[in-house]
C-alpha cells in the first residue's frame, strides 16, 4: 500500500516507523528539512520537503497513485485542505487530524465527510476516550475500547488472591462467570501465549481478556478480590484533554470528578462547561492545594496538562499523598522507557499513540473497522466485517485455519454480542474481533483486505 503522510511531528514519525515495519510504501512530507533528514536516516521511506497543502508538493509525492493520505500537520486547515486535494486526485482514503472538537464527528453542522475526508480525528478526544476506559475498569493495566466501545479489551495482572489460581481453566469451578468474557492472550516471563483449556495461570501473569464493559468489570471484581476500586478522580489540567475527560466521566460514570486548572480564565471556562464536577483554580505542583484536595486511597489521579515534566511530578506528589492510582499524560515518546524503568507512575498515556490506534485500521483493508495496538504486550486486536465474498463466510470458527498466535474472541451480530465458540458459524454482516501477534497478522493480510 502506498501511504502519504503529511507532517513529520511525533505522531507522523511514530506512524511512519510502524508502517515501514509492515513494509508499506511510505512517503513523508514536511516543511522542515532537518526533521526529514533525521527520519530518512532511520526509516526506509521517501521524504519530500514542502508544504503539505501545496498541489505541486502533493503531485511530486505521487498523489495520483496513493492509496491512503494521513494528514497530521499541526495546522488543521492544512490537513483538511490537503485531504480535499487528495480527494480531487482520487485517493481512496483520507484521514485528517483536527484540534477543534466541532469538526470531529458528524454531530455538528459541518460534516467533513462531504469533502471526501473519511475520518476526521481529534487526538485529545481519542486520548480522553482511552483515559476514560482505563478509569472505568479499576485494576486494569490497559483498557481499549472496540466495536464503538461496546467491547473492552483489558489487560490485568493476576494477583495473589486470584480465585483462578486453583488449576487449569477447564477444571475451574467458575464456568458461569468465565463464559461471560474471553481470554485472548497472556504473557509469562516475556513470552506471549494464547490461553487454552489446559492453561493454568500463575501469580504475576498479565492476562488480556475481552468482553462487554459491565461484564468485564464484574469479572475483574471476581478475579481481583483485593482491588477495592476508587470513587473519585482528580484531573490536573483543564486543557482539551482534561476537560473532555471530566465531561465524559461526569456523564457516563458514577465517579466524582475534581478538575484542577492553573489558569483562572480557563478554570472559569471549565466550570461553565461542566455540571457536577468541582473545578479548582490552582497548580497541581502546589503541595498545599494538592493536600487540600484530600487525595487518598479512594482517589485516582490523572495528570493531563501539556507539560510532561509537570505531569510526572504531580503524579509523584499524588502518589506520596496516597492516591490509589496515578496516570500521566506524556507526549515525548522518549520518556517512556525512563518512566517504565523507574516506575514513576502507574500508567502513561500518549495522545500520539491514541491517535495512531484510532486510525490504524485505515492501513488495512476496507473490511477492517478497527485496529488497536496493545501497549503492554505485542500484538493487536482487529475488528473486521465479514462481507459477501469473505473466505471465512459460513464457516464454523472451529474450521477456520488461523496462523499461530491468533484468536477469534468475539462476534457482533446485529446488536447481539457473542463470545466466539468453536461451533459458531460466521454470517454476512458479522463483526469479528481477532487478536494476533504482529507476525501472524501479516500472514492474514489477504483475509483482512
Amino acid at each position: 500500500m502506498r501511504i502519504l503522510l503529511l507532517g513529520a511531528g511525533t505522531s507522523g514519525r511514530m506512524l511512519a516507523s510502524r508502517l515501514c515495519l509492515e513494509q508499506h510504501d511510505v512517503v513523508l512530507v514536511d516543511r522542515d528539512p532537518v526533521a526529514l533528514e533525521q527520519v530518512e536516516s532511520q526509516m526506509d521511506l521517501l521524504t519530500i520537503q514542502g508544504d503539505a497543502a501545496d498541489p505541486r508538493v502533493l503531485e511530486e509525492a505521487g498523489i495520483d497513485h496513493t492509496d491512503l493520505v494521513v494528514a497530521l500537520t499541526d495546522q488543521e486547515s492544512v490537513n483538511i485542505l490537503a485531504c480535499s486535494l487528495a480527494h480531487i486526485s482520487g485517493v481512496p482514503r483520507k484521514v485528517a487530524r483536527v484540534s477543534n472538537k466541532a469538526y470531529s464527528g458528524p454531530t455538528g453542522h459541518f460534516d467533513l465527510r462531504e469533502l471526501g475526508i473519511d475520518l476526521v480525528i481529534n487526538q485529545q478526544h481519542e486520548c480522553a476516550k482511552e483515559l476514560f476506559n482505563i478509569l472505568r475498569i479499576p485494576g486494569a493495566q490497559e483498557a481499549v475500547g472496540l466495536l464503538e466501545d461496546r467491547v473492552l479489551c483489558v489487560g490485568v495482572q493476576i494477583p495473589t488472591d486470584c480465585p483462578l489460581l486453583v488449576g487449569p481453566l477447564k477444571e475451574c469451578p467458575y464456568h458461569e462467570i468465565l463464559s461471560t468474557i474471553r481470554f485472548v492472550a497472556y504473557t509469562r516471563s516475556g513470552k506471549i501465549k494464547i490461553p487454552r483449556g489446559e492453561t493454568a495461570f500463575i501469580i504475576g501473569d498479565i492476562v488480556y481478556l475481552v468482553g462487554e464493559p459491565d461484564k468485564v468489570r464484574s469479572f475483574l471484581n471476581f478475579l481481583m478480590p483485593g482491588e477495592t476500586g476508587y470513587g473519585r478522580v482528580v484531573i490536573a489540567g483543564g486543557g482539551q484533554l482534561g476537560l473532555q475527560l471530566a465531561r465524559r466521566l461526569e456523564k457516563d460514570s458514577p465517579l466524582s470528578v475534581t478538575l484542577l486548572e492553573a489558569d483562572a480564565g480557563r478554570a472559569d471556562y471549565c466550570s461553565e462547561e461542566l455540571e457536577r464536577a468541582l473545578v479548582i483554580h490552582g497548580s497541581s505542583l502546589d503541595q498545599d492545594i494538592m493536600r487540600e484536595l484530600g487525595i487518598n486511597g479512594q482517589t485516582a489521579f490523572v495528570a493531563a496538562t501539556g507539560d510532561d515534566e509537570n505531569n510526572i511530578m504531580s503524579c509523584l506528589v499524588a502518589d506520596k499523598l496516597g492516591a490509589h492510582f496515578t496516570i500521566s499524560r506524556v507526549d515525548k515518546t522518549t520518556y517512556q522507557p525512563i518512566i517504565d524503568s523507574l516506575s514513576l507512575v502507574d500508567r502513561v498515556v500518549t495522545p500520539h499513540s491514541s491517535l495512531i490506534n484510532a486510525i490504524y485500521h485505515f492501513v488495512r483493508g476496507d473490511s477492517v473497522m478497527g485496529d488497536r495496538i496493545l501497549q503492554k504486550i505485542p500484538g493487536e486486536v482487529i475488528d473486521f466485517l465479514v462481507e459477501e465474498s469473505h473466505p471465512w463466510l459460513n464457516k464454523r470458527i472451529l474450521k477456520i485455519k488461523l496462523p499461530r498466535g491468533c484468536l477469534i474472541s468475539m462476534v457482533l451480530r446485529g446488536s447481539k454480542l457473542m463470545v466466539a465458540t468453536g461451533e459458531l458459524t460466521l454470517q454476512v454482516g458479522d463483526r469479528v474481533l481477532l487478536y494476533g501477534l504482529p507476525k501472524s497478522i501479516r500472514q492474514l493480510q489477504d483475509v483482512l483486505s
Partner: protein
Amino acid sequence: MNSRSVFHLVSYLIMFVSLAMGSCALVSWAYGDGLYIILQILSAAGVGLVIGGGTFYFTKGPVRLTRKDGFAIVTFGWLCVGAVGALPYLFTDAIPNPVDALFETISGFTTTGSTILSDIEVLPRGIIFWRSLTQWLGGMGVLLLCVAILPFLGVGGMQIYRAEMPGPSKDRLTPRIGNTAKLLYGVYVLMTAVQTALLMLAGMTFFDAINHTFCTVSTGGFSPYNDSIAAFDSSLIHSIIIVFMVLAGINFALHFQFMRGKLSSYWHSLETKTYLVVMLGATLLVSYNLASFDADGDNAIQFRDALFQVVSITTTTGFATANYDLWPLLSKAIIFILLFSGGCAGSTAGGLKIMRSLVLFKEVFRQIKLYMQPQAVLKVRLDRQTVAPNIVSGIMAFAFCYFMLILAFTLIMTLYLPDFASASSAAISCLSNVGPGFSSLGPTMNYASIADSGKLLLAFCMLLGRLELFTILVMFSPRFWKR
C-alpha cells in the same frame, strides 16, 4: 561500528558470489572445458560457500545498522568479494599469482577492465565467463542486488544504496529502497537481454554475445578476445556496442521513466544532453584530426573508430577497436581529457560524472557573477531544481579529492612505470574505472609488467573510484573506529 551485523551481511554477499561462481562450472561443462577445470571451479565455489557460511553462522543475530555500518558493509563487502572472486583464477591456474588474480577480480568487479592477462583466448571458457560475470555483477553493484533480494535490508539498505550507487543524485524510484533496487536491476537485466539478442543477430555466437554484453552494460570493458572488439570487423557489431555503451552511461532512473512511458525523460535532463554533446563533439574533433593526419585513410572507418574510442572512454568502458596510442597528439589529448569525465550519475559508468562537472561549472559562473555583483542572490540550478549549497560543497570536495588522488597515485606510479604518460594514465584510468591508459598501458598493452605492490595499489585505486572515494575514505578517519 557493529561488526557482527556488518559481517553477517557481508557473509550473504560471499555466499551469493560463490553461487555465481558455481554457475560458471555449468558454462565450463557446456563448452567442454574438461573435468579438471569444472572440478576446480566447483571447489573454488565450495571454498567460498564454506567461508561465507562460516561467517554467516558465527555472526547470526538481529541486524542493526547505522550510517557508519553502511560504509563498512560496502567497503568490507567489496574487499571480501574481490578476495573470494579471485579463487577460480587461482584454482584453475588461469592466473597462478595471487596478486594478479586479485587485481583481475577487483578490476572486474569495479568494472575497470584493466587486465594483467596477455593471452585471454587460451583461458577455459568457464573462467572467461566468470571474468565477464564479475563485471556484470559489479556494474549495478553487488550489494544493491542484495538490497533487492534481502527484504530485511530496510534502513540499512538506504545506507548501502547511498554508499554504492555512483553519482551524487540518488533518485528513488519508489519509497522503499528494496523496490527501487529491484526496478534498477530490472532495467539492467532488460538491457542485457536486448543487447545479447542483437549481438547474436549481428552474427556473434551466444558465448561471445553474452560476454560482450556483460562487459558493455556494466561499462566494464573485459573482452574474451586479445584484440578486444577489433576482433570483429563488423560495423553492425561496433554500432550495437556503441549504442549500449551510451545507454549504460545514462542515469538508469531515466531509462526507467522512459520505459514507463515518459518519452521525454532524456530530453529534460541537462546531464544527458551534455553527455551526448560532449561525446559527439569529441568524435567530430577526433575524426577530423584523424582525417587530416592520414589523408589516405577511409573517412567512414576513421569516424567509426573515433566514435567507438570516444564513447568507450567517456562511458569508462575501455573496449578498443583501434589503438589510440598511435593517433596524432590532438586526438590523444582529447582521449586523455575524456578519461576524467565519466558518464552520468546513476549509471554504471565511473569517473567524475557529467553531473558533477556541470554543477561545478555552474558554481564557477555563479562565483564570477558574485564578483561583479556581490549583493546578487544566485542559486545553482539543474533541471529547474536548485542544488542545495551543501551538495555543491560536497561536489567540490569530491572533485578536489579526485584530482588530489590522481596526483598522488601518479606520483606513486612513476616508481613502477617507465614514463609519465603511463604513470598518470594508470592513476586516472583506474580511479575512473576506465581500463586502458597510454604508452606502456595503451589499449593493446596490459598491466602485467607492473610489480605486485603496484598492482595492489592500483586495485585499491579502482575500489576508491568505484565506491566514489568517500565510502572508503571515511574508513580512514579515526572517528569511524571510535565507539
